[in-house]
């Protein structure tokens, strides 16, 4: 028994044991849960006397023997205390084809959200729309650098992409015209604040976009406190009817209504419920990314309250699901059976390697969150250049190169976290940002508990 990692926790009446390296999740009774505390360095077939001595007063002898035997069987089957033998796969973490692109179609925005990581749309670089010629070169770049990858993802991002919608359409047409010749399949996504949506745009988006991300924070007072129009008024009343119309017309197509929570709405369950009340069933509400100095930032101090809120939300979603009135909450989605392979899980998002962001000027950055940081500019679609050394650095950034991740039970679920967050908060893409880690771990605990509750 060596090099193993388990995570055990109790939540909502369930004793849960995650065997990290096999990915197995066990729901155990109290006796088995306690037995695990006594199994440390060696797991022998017959229950040792010291365990009987420790637990005999509380549990029948036969039960201890039986529970111990069941744990041992899991161990023998390789689904408990399984060893970490993934490290050799880190050698596979080399330069990959580029398959995902975040296209900054507009470095301009018609809202002035106070928490915007893009400096209210322009990423600190001046307001600008991407010309079609740059978009076209970006598509050519993506096709050329995608090797044998068939599925290519292109996200129209901003700023606000609808401020440059004609160019969005031109780029979609151009990309589609190249699919057959190069044996590629483009999947388009668009992230929008909704202000400029109308029926024509809605129909186009629903036809062409594989996924659409609609930004709305939940309750009117919460949304309007931070998501403001240029004149300072709230955006809720403008965008909600448009989002409802889009989703109504979308049918089964993928979408997310995506909100941000801050210190101002630590009771964000109420915002998730507001989005549900509005008729949205695909919802993501996520913690703000910001300088810790900002008055709305989620800091260490807020963590206990946020954890409590995640638990409240998980329990509420379970109740709703039992009544067949549930919704899908993005951060509680987990696939314990058919999720991504372990190799994918070694390095997560792929930024700077498989995934890049392109600005309106054609500059390439590792991802949208690095845009504007000059030292992270890694090439240009104009002259078809990419900094191979920097690409290699990102390609090699995997959980076995991040000491804190290597020893973390959540390593195969978040895969080393967000490199941009790591950079922003710790100045090193290999050093995970603790607050993000803690939030991710709590979400995972809730997500797994929800699976247990539905067993």
């Amino acid at each position: 028994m060596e090099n193993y990692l388990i995570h055990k926790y109790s939540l909502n009446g369930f004793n849960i044991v995650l065997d990290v390296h096999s990915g197995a999740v066990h729901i155990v009774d109290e006796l088995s849960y306690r037995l695990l505390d006594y199994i440390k360095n060696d797991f022998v077939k017959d229950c040792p006397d010291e365990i009987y001595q420790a637990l005999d007063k509380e549990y029948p002898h036969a039960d201890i023997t039986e529970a111990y035997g069941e744990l041992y069987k899991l161990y023998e089957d390789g689904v408990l205390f399984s060893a970490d033998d993934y490290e050799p796969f880190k050698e596979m973490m080399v330069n990959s084809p580029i398959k995902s692109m975040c296209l900054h179609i507009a470095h301009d925005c018609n809202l002035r959200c106070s928490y915007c990581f893009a400096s209210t749309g322009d990423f600190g670089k001046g307001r600008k729309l991407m010309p079609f010629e740059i978009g076209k070169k970006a598509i050519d770049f993506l096709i050329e650098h995608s090797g044998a990858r068939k599925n290519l993802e292109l996200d129209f991002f901003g700023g606000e992409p609808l401020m440059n919608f004609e160019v969005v359409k031109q780029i979609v047409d151009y990309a589609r015209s190249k699919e057959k010749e190069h044996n590629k399949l483009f999947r388009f996504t668009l992230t929008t604040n909704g202000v400029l949506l109308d029926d024509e745009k809605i129909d186009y988006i629903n036809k062409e976009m594989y996924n659409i991300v609609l930004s709305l924070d939940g309750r009117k007072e919460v949304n309007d406190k931070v998501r403001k129009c240029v004149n300072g008024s709230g955006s809720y009343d403008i965008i909600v009817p448009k989002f409802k119309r889009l989703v109504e017309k979308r049918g089964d197509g993928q979408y997310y209504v995506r909100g941000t929570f801050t210190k101002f709405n630590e009771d964000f369950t109420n915002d998730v419920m507001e989005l549900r009340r509005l008729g949205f069933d695909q919802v993501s509400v996520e913690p703000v990314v910001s300088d810790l100095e900002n008055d709305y930032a989620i800091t260490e101090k807020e963590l206990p309250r946020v954890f409590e809120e995640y638990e409240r939300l998980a329990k509420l979603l379970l109740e709703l699901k039992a009544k067949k009135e549930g919704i899908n909450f993005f951060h509680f989605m987990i696939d314990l059976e058919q999720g991504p392979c372990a190799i994918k899980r070694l390095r997560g998002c792929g930024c700077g390697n498989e995934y890049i962001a392109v600005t309106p000027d054609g500059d390439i950055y590792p991802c949208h969150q690095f845009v504007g940081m000059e030292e992270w500019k890694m090439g240009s679609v104009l002259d078809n250049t990419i900094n191979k050394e920097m690409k290699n650095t990102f390609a090699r950034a995997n959980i076995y190169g991040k000491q804190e991740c290597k020893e973390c039970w959540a390593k195969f679920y978040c895969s080393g976290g967000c490199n941009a967050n790591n950079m922003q908060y710790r100045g090193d893409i290999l050093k995970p940002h603790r607050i993000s880690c803690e939030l991710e771990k709590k979400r995972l605990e809730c997500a797994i508990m929800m699976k247990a509750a539905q067993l």
Partner: protein
Amino acid sequence: MKHIKTLNTANLKKSTAKGGCGECQASCQSACKTSCTVANQKCENANK
């Protein structure tokens, strides 16, 4: 088993055999753009 229920049958270790094809979605593209959650993604390997 009387004391234990196992939630899933898949073993992550088996997924390495035909893994690493790279066809699955970049995790940041799906909704978040500000965090990294990988375990909720679909495997898109056509040859597994």
